[in-house]
């Protein structure tokens, strides 16, 4: 590559010619983000309920997910290769595990934060434990749970870029390709759109939270 092209940070012509592929990267990025967040939420919910029933499980659970989080994401994908190969499942499994460290504590703390008077009132009104959870505790815990979901989603949108090294990546693939071609424009497009997606997802979840839990605007 020549120095003349290296000084051009943003080649708008390239962007204009590649709107199609860039759009595909965005869609792929979302397709890589949604399943891990969804699976992570379902698994975390189960683990959180388990931790609330068997209190002794909670601290070990938090510790184990914390240690898993200390494993670099790329290493995580690599470690799964012997079991899952360079597959989409590989990316989903590793990313799902990363959501647990945020979601499990948030769901537990959210449900624990429901005032005792409220749960006792529900019991006195004859609510079964399941109905109490669904009709009373869960709605009241929504702001805290969604706060966790926001952090998990933003984190996963960032980590999806790393899946470029195992052949996926969404916008991360643009970052990696731009790096390999020493072409700043493609890297900047990848970085900017990844950040934009993260911010958009964060704001969308915030709007959702305000719609379903309007009594707590401050969070």
């Amino acid at each position, binding site marked *: 590559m020549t120095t003349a092209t290296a000084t051009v940070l943003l080649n708008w012509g390239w962007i204009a010619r590649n709107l199609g592929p860039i759009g595909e990267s965005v869609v792929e990025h979302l397709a890589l983000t949604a399943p891990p967040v969804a699976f992570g939420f379902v698994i975390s919910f189960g683990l959180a309920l388990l931790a609330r029933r068997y209190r002794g499980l909670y601290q070990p659970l938090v510790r184990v997910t914390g240690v898993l989080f200390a494993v670099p994401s790329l290493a995580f994908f690599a470690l799964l290769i012997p079991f899952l190969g360079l597959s989409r499942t590989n990316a989903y499994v590793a990313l799902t595990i990363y959501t647990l460290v945020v979601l499990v504590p948030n769901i537990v703390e959210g449900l624990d934060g429901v005032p005792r008077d409220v749960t006792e009132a529900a019991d006195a009104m004859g609510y079964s434990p399941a109905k109490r959870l669904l009709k009373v505790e869960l709605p009241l815990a929504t702001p805290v749970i969604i706060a966790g979901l926001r*952090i998990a989603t*933003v984190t996963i949108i960032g980590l999806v870029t790393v899946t470029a090294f195992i052949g996926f990546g969404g916008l991360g693939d643009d970052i990696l390709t731009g790096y390999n071609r020493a072409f700043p424009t493609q890297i900047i497009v990848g*970085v900017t759109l990844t*950040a934009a997606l993260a911010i958009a997802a964060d704001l969308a979840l915030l709007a959702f939270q305000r719609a379903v839990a309007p009594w707590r605007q401050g969070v």
Partner: protein
Amino acid sequence: MEVFLEGLLWLVDSEHWSGHNAIPLRVREHVLYAVTALAAGAAIAVPVGLWTGHTGRLGNVAINVGNLGRAIPDLGIVAIAAVLIGFGILPVILALTALAIPPLLTNTYTAVRGVDAEVRDAAVGMGFTGWRLLRQVEIPLALPLIFAGVRVSTVQVIATATISGFIGRAGGLGRYIFDGLALLDIPRVVAGAVLVALLGVLADVGLARLQRAVTPKGFAAALAEREAVASPPGG
């Protein structure tokens, strides 16, 4: 499970404990990158967080910069820095510094802002103003929460310092992970991952002890609920 065993055997193989790609060397490089980035990040984030928290000005900016930082992918920062300023450790340090700033900034700001208004009023009533108020009242009370930010940043930076392996002519434990992946030498990847995770956990445990040591007596109990403000890791 066999893979993990092979990884552990790779770790204890004496061949990997000497030479230009030796484990102690890679660990030292990894720690050097992480510590440099954390120091640079703290040098920027802590003064800004203290000032915005103390004056209450630009608080939203501090929080938003913190959140925005979390949205920007580290891989992208390293890639763009490497292409623009060349290969070597500088792009790695830059990306890690950018990563270290958000939790430090958000926690420092929240910590100082969160100092009990009554305590602050009492201090002002006793004649504390400006710098003395910050240094003798606000900082000591904010220190535990600031430390929570340091812990989050440290674990993230140590895990993400792996990205050094992406850049030619940079060392660190990322070399094992990236080179191992390129060569499909999975035991080497496992060894690298185990070492990085171990470093992260050790640093977290060490800082947790330090955090307890700097917590003013009688304040520890009241702190438990405020700790929840500390953002969880995301590397």
